[in-house]
């Protein structure tokens, strides 16, 4: 068990910078997820922690000790690869046993013929077999030890890869998109299993994914990366509720957040499609803003509906997706507004909004995320007190 610290890690491949000064402290036993679109540098970062890639600058500390000069296996970390990287010529037993064979047997004891000279080999192999058996039964793959990886299903291979990582009892588990080769159903299942495994082992997990659902559901903390930097580091709920950057807002949450162009008017309020919202943001009058509005913060209603404290937009229903428990509505905004808004609606035929000549979209101005022209969150936002009372009576979207 160990804490992992990254000190201004930079990396460039030739002239192409990939990581620009990453600082990150990962606590002992934490489940830290690095999330971001492909090419954001998250995989490079985890490979640097593993020692498979050498950073251009900066330092990696495991338990307070710099490990930059150490080979991967000396860092006491285990890695699960996206492809699992199981050894195809070994049986499941051999795959899981390899880290132990490497660490417990001397070089000559691993070589053909020469190993016959060893007196202790048989005893060590028996110990290894016992340890492998214990891991295998933990992962419920003890019946598969004689199989070759090619005879396993995707989920079983995943478990073997996990077993190979666990058997060394590493200080930290590094996982590079371990679930992305599984089908959707199995991925949901393995998500739960991984989270339970983390709870059971209490080890430090560093997990790379491009899937925001995995990041949100499993992690203690999430570091959202983009373009070689960490945009935001925090609890999953923080990234969802208070995205620090428009890119974070866009990445976290499904369906994706609605973004609407707005500006600050002369009186210091936010103006959306020519109408003033009950929302004040500090900034130069005329400055361009972007309002982020979660689909779950928008309530669809029959055209003409108004409610105290809620702002209303009108539009026409373009498409509705039935998810069983709810509908996802895609609504084209009517002039003078433009664009499309996605919102969710619980299925309840009595209140279901149908598009009879249009649809009203209601939202509380206080639910808006405000971003400046550079995409940073505007924190200096206040809502006049009237809307505060109204927000309390808001029909909850979820």
């Amino acid at each position, binding site marked *: 068990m160990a804490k992992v610290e990254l000190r201004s890690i930079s990396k460039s491949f030739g002239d192409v910078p990939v990581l620009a000064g990453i600082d990150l402290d990962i606590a002992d036993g934490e489940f830290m997820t690095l999330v971001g679109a492909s090419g954001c540098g998250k995989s490079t970062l985890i490979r640097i922690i593993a020692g498979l890639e050498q950073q251009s600058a900066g330092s990696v500390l495991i338990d307070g000790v710099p490990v930059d000069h150490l*080979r991967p*296996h000396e860092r006491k970390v*285990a890695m699960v690869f996206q*492809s699992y*990287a199981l*050894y*195809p010529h070994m049986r499941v037993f051999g795959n899981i046993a390899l*880290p132990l064979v*490497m660490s417990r047997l001397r070089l000559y004891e691993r070589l053909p013929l020469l190993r016959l000279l060893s007196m202790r080999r048989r005893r060590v192999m028996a110990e290894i077999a016992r340890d492998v058996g214990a891991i295998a039964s933990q992962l419920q793959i003890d019946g598969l030890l004689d199989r070759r990886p090619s005879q396993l299903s995707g989920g079983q291979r995943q478990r073997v890869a996990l077993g190979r990582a666990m058997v060394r009892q590493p200080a930290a588990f590094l996982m590079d998109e371990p679930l992305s080769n599984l089908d959707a159903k199995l991925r949901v299942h393995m998500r739960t299993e991984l989270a339970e495994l983390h709870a059971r082992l209490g080890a430090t997990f560093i997990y790379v994914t491009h899937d925001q659902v995995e990041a949100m559901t499993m992690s203690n903390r999430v570091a959202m990366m983009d373009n070689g930097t960490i945009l935001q580091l925090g609890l999953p709920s923080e990234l969802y509720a208070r995205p620090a950057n428009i890119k974070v807002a866009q990445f976290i949450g499904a369906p994706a957040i609605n973004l609407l162009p707005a500006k600050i008017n002369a009186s210091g309020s936010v103006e959306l499609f020519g109408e003033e919202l009950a929302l004040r943001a500090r900034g130069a009058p005329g400055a361009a803003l972007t309002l982020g509005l979660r689909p779950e913060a928008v309530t669809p209603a029959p055209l003409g509906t108004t409610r105290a404290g809620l702002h209303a937009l009108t539009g026409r229903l373009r498409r509705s997706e039935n998810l069983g428990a709810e509908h996802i509505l895609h609504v084209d905004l009517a002039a003078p507004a433009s664009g499309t808004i996605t919102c969710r609606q619980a299925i309840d035929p009595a209140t279901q909004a149908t598009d009879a000549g249009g649809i009203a979209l209601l939202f509380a101005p206080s639910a808006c995320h405000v971003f400046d022209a550079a995409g940073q969150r505007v924190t200096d936002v206040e809502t006049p007190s009237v809307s505060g009372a109204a927000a309390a009576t808001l029909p909850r979207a979820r």
Partner: protein
Amino acid sequence: MIMASAAINAGPMPAPRRNRQRLIESVAGCGFSLPAFLLLLLIYIVPLLVLGYLSFTNYELGALDTRFLGFANFRKALSDPVFRRSLGNTFAYVAIVLPGAVGLGLLIAVLLHRRKRSRSFYEVIYFLPVTSTLIAMATVFQFMLHPSIGPINGVLKALGFSAIPFLSEPAYVLPTLAAIGIWHLVGFNMVLFLAGLSAIPRDLYEAAEIDGCQGGLDRFMTITWPLLGPTTMFVIVTTSITAFKVFDTVAVMTRGGPMGHSEVLLYAIYLEGYQYFHMGYASALTLIFLAFVLIISVVQTLVIERRVHY
């Protein structure tokens, strides 16, 4: 395939039509394979049958009458000292060339695999001998190895060693020929091994490194060697068959000498057939030769095939 799927798409058909369809399919199938079959017949099967027939006769090139001898040719071969010596020499030659050409080819491939800029340069250097004509190169080697005017012995003498009679000393002649054989084969094996090496996923080496494979030896024994299994098997089979067929260098450089120490199978067959015109006997020797090649390939395929595919 197209016809088969058409038949499936058409669904159930009345019996006479289905039979007709089947007839058309089999006629078409035979038609497609006919050209290849004819070539196979003309080039392999008919000559092989003629060879088999001749091996039971005392046919001599140009002879007017031929007698059927039964197995006499084969009995003669088993007790023929020249043939037995050439068989032994051939196996000794294969025993040197096989590990040499396979091992060196693998070594060079492993060394070159990770190089980026110099790789193609070395590839060309090692592959050049493969593209050369061995007969011509044998003449060059004969000059190079000449005891008095050859540059190799010139260098040895300049360094203070005595000249080595590479081709006239019975103990040296076979190893010398084998070295030339290795020189000629290594490049080809190297290219095959390079192809095999690039097919090994890089992930596996990274996983092995994290799992504690420390040095090149660990890496090689854990990942490279087992995963090169199919390539190695192919290389071993082709190399041993090529080595078994050694002829050019012997015919040009030593003519089986000195004192029969470089007599090999193909050269013995060539002598019997085209120098002494004992076609019947040469045919019997050829059949024995083919049987050995067949045994080598079958045994290697059966034994190794089971252990290299995952």
